[in-house]
């Protein structure tokens, strides 16, 4: 059974239908790369998975927990679903280390010392050993985003959602963040990421999803799709002749 199962999800903002029946399966250890034009509903879909957005019909389950049916406690769900944002959204009044320790100490009630040790090892993992006491404003965008990834990992999520996490970065900082994500992927972390980094989607993704006008227009193994897009829309989007 798939870890994240999305079935015929529909979502509207007022009269505008943004998701028009989206279905998508993500298995354990999958790296799903979602691509598509601006406004095609990529972020909305991702935000439905951890309950930041509600949807009108269909169903989403994560590790057997139904999302948005009103029965599953969203807090329980979110302990298993991490999210990293385009704008980092670090807490500016807390140091890098405190950002990472916040949820484990407040939500999981971990001991301070224990949480601190975890935070330090996570910072090391994202290549920021020694930045424990730095405030977000003292870090570059790439460093901030890596702290944000560490912060999400501190809750030991079963799946990590990433919404264009390199789009706000200067080009020379993109790679340091992608490397961290690639390493997570190689360690077997389940990832669903919206991205504009086509090469990353092809090389690291285990599944490519092309969204178009609120639907999954095409999906499959990245290399196959990039090599031979089945639809003119995807061909045009990735810039190859069908």
């Amino acid at each position, binding site marked *: 059974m798939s870890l994240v199962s999305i079935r015929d999800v529909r979502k509207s903002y007022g009269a505008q239908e943004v998701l028009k029946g989206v279905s998508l399966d993500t298995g354990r250890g999958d790296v799903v790369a979602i691509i598509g034009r601006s406004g095609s509903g990529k972020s909305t879909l991702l935000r439905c998975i951890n309950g930041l957005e509600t949807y009108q019909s269909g169903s989403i389950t994560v590790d057997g927990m139904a999302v948005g049916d009103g029965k599953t406690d969203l807090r329980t769900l*979110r302990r298993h679903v991490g999210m990293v944002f385009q704008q980092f959204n670090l807490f500016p009044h807390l140091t890098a280390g405190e950002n990472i320790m916040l*949820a484990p100490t407040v939500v999981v009630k971990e001991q301070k010392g224990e949480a601190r040790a975890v935070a330090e090892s996570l910072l090391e993992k994202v290549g920021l050993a020694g930045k424990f006491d730095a405030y977000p404003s003292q870090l570059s965008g790439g460093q901030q985003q890596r702290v944000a990834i560490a912060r999400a990992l501190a809750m030991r999520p079963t799946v990590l959602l990433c919404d264009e996490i390199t789009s706000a970065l200067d080009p020379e900082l993109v790679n340091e963040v992608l490397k961290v994500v690639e390493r997570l992927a190689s360690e077997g972390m389940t990832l669903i990421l919206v991205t504009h980094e086509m090469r990353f989607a092809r090389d690291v993704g285990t599944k490519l999803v092309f969204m178009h006008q609120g639907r999954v227009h095409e999906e499959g193994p990245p290399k196959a799709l990039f090599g031979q897009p089945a639809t003119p829309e995807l061909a045009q989007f990735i810039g190859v002749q069908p």
Partner: protein
Amino acid sequence: MSDFSFWIILQNLLLATRWTILLSLIAFVSGGIVGLLVLLARVSHGRVLRILSLGYIEVFQGTPLLMQLFLFFFGVALFGIEVSPWVAAWLALTLWTSAFLAEIWRGCVESIPKGQWEASESLALSYGEQMRHVILPQALRIAVAPTVGFSVQVVKGTALASIIGFVELTKAGTMLNNVTFRPFLVYTLVALIYFALCFPLSWYSKRLEGRLNVAR
């Protein structure tokens, strides 16, 4: 009456100033505590709480402080409860202050970017935990300057307590004028003392504001 020298007038005014300062301080502190509760109601998820707190704020912002003082002083007496000018002034100023502070602070809370809510929500924090650990600490920093700025209004607001007979700076001025018949001197001194109390506060508030803007 000429033996009511300048120094005696000044001395008496300064003695009364103690009460202005004390009333200001107490009203500000208790107003701040009540204001925090009103703020929490105002930004809560509960519809009823939000409406009630909005009504509270509108009532105290939308009526003159003097009327509020009268209501506490004379109104409560109608129920057979004896209220001293001191208590009436304290209560009225507390509620009045709380309404304004709650509204100022609401602005600060709402200026925290949506991403902060979303990030903390995604980390499984509850609403209360988000408030306590993420939103309020940031809002507090923004709130310091306008809060200190508002304290000037509280100091000036205490002058109204003179009307219900509480002997603070303004009332002392009126009494001294009645015996010395030197209104210009007395009220100039009164005004200068208010200015000496308020100016450092507003100056400090402006400085904090400037520092915050530079920090961005």
